[in-house]
């Protein structure tokens, strides 16, 4: 699946959609595909303050347990309630219904986030 142009990407395979001071965060299609069937997602808590690149959650697939690193810093304002009941939504639609949480961004979004084109290069050379 193509990496949408309107998102920013981290080298840890997370995406962020920045709208005003809010960022919606998830993992990329490349990440979900590498992980395999996702059976559990542990998200940060609403109200929690997170730093950019901090480990703030866990994705567990039938193959492995991986950590979630936030591409942005700020306060978590919403988590995707669907993922508790249906973690496979991340497999089906990583950029859509499989979104993970929303952050009220404080400070500038991390400057090391990549464009869709640069992220594409990262995963094709990986």
């Amino acid at each position, binding site marked *: 699946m193509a990496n949408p142009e309107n998102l920013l990407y981290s080298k840890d395979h997370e995406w962020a959609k920045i709208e005003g001071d809010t960022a919606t965060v998830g993992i990329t299609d490349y990440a979900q595909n590498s992980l395999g069937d996702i059976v*559990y997602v*542990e998200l940060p*808590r609403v109200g*929690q303050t997170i730093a950019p690149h901090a*480990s703030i959650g*866990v994705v*567990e697939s039938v193959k492995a*347990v991986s*950590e979630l690193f936030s591409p942005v810093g700020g306060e978590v304002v919403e988590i995707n309630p669907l993922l508790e009941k249906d973690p496979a939504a991340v497999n089906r639609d990583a950029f859509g219904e499989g979104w993970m949480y929303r952050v009220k961004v404080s400070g500038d979004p991390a400057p090391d986030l990549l464009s869709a084109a640069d992220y594409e290069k990262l995963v094709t050379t990986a």
Partner: protein
Amino acid sequence: MYAPHTQSDIRDMLETVGVASLEELLRVPDAIALGEPLAVPRGLPELELQRTISAYAAQNDAAGYTSFLGAGSYRHYIPPVVPAIAMRGEFLTAYTPYQAEVSQGYLQAIYEWQSYVCLLTGLDLSNASVYDGATALAEAAIMAVNATGRRALLVSPAVHPNYRAVLRTYARGLELEVDELQFCAEEGTSGLDSLPALLAEKRYAAVVVQSPNFFGCVDVPGDSTRTAIEASGTVLIGVVAEAMSLGALVSPADWGAHIAVGEAQSFGNPVAYGGPYVGFIAANKEHMRRIPGRLVGRTVDGTGKLAYTLTLQAREQHIRREKATSNICTNQAHCALCATIYLAAVGATGLRRCATLNVERAHILAERVTRVPGFSRRFGAPVFNEIAIRVPDGTSAAAVLAGLQERRILGGVDLGRWYPQLADSILMTATELTTDGEIEALTGALGAIASGAIGGHAAPISGEASVVRA
């Protein structure tokens, strides 16, 4: 697989710490080296050794005492079928199975243990067991902290003092705050009525309540307290130090516990000084990913046959490394097995009858002891198999217990040891093993001790004639 260090690993490590050889690393400094052989006696022939050790063992005459001890360790009947099965070679390991799936029989036994724990606690899932009731509580507290992101715990003062001590040890390392509730001295309960106000701030990860509590009293939250616990998003940890009570009282899930922990020694495991005992943890589904230790699941293999397997291991150290939810990665396999065989042998009906018998014996004990002038019930709340007894004015629990011990009776536990304001009270336990004759011996001795103690006082403690009956 055992992977020993290679020579180059060893070289790298020695270089890192800055010593030339393994010998140099392990050399005892001259200043503290003994410099002569250890003063250990010579080896003995088997027969001589047996005589020596038997002579030591004969000094231990605890079995010759009549016991009313409880307070976390309970004398219960162990049907011979328990050791007969548990001692089979196929089962005889204290350790959790590694190469686990090869040990299908042991996994099945653990699965059955988990099922019993779920049935008895009323909760959804349980693990393969942990060291003891106290560590089970500490692990549950960590689960609650991880689930809520809060760093404080609110604990009833009527939770077993040893359990609270272990909890504090864990909490210190994790930098968790541990607060205690106000004790209700009249009822012998936790003062749970004050909970709603304390929880309003949503500061506490968990409330820890034990029932029956350390004083033997049924001690569970009422409806309004439960509503406050739910509304504040606090985890209610229910502690059960006497698992036999689960055969007679409502389950922790029924009184609102989200996580239930406790000690299952009462099922098929003897009282032993220092254990080993066996802790259980059960939780509702919400906490499935946080329950520590091993979990056995039932599934089918590639050919569709029933099979048992370790499951949900993603929380464990060998996968999550330092991010594991707990450093528990073993269980009390053999003790849990004994408990499982016990429960299978007595069945639901047998367990209920045995538990009911405990209630009856404790009430007979209470009634007869309080007929001895000067002795009374310390608390008002209903009890399972333990009662706090206040000793006559002018004496102390310690003095009464010392007098009983001279008469070869272990009369119970001096509550003043943990609660200075209760130095006038003894915690006495009766189980299905407690006979009328033992109670008669106890009341006779109590009467003699009390009249001896009163002898030196001007006024008798009671106008009643000192009639001691069993």
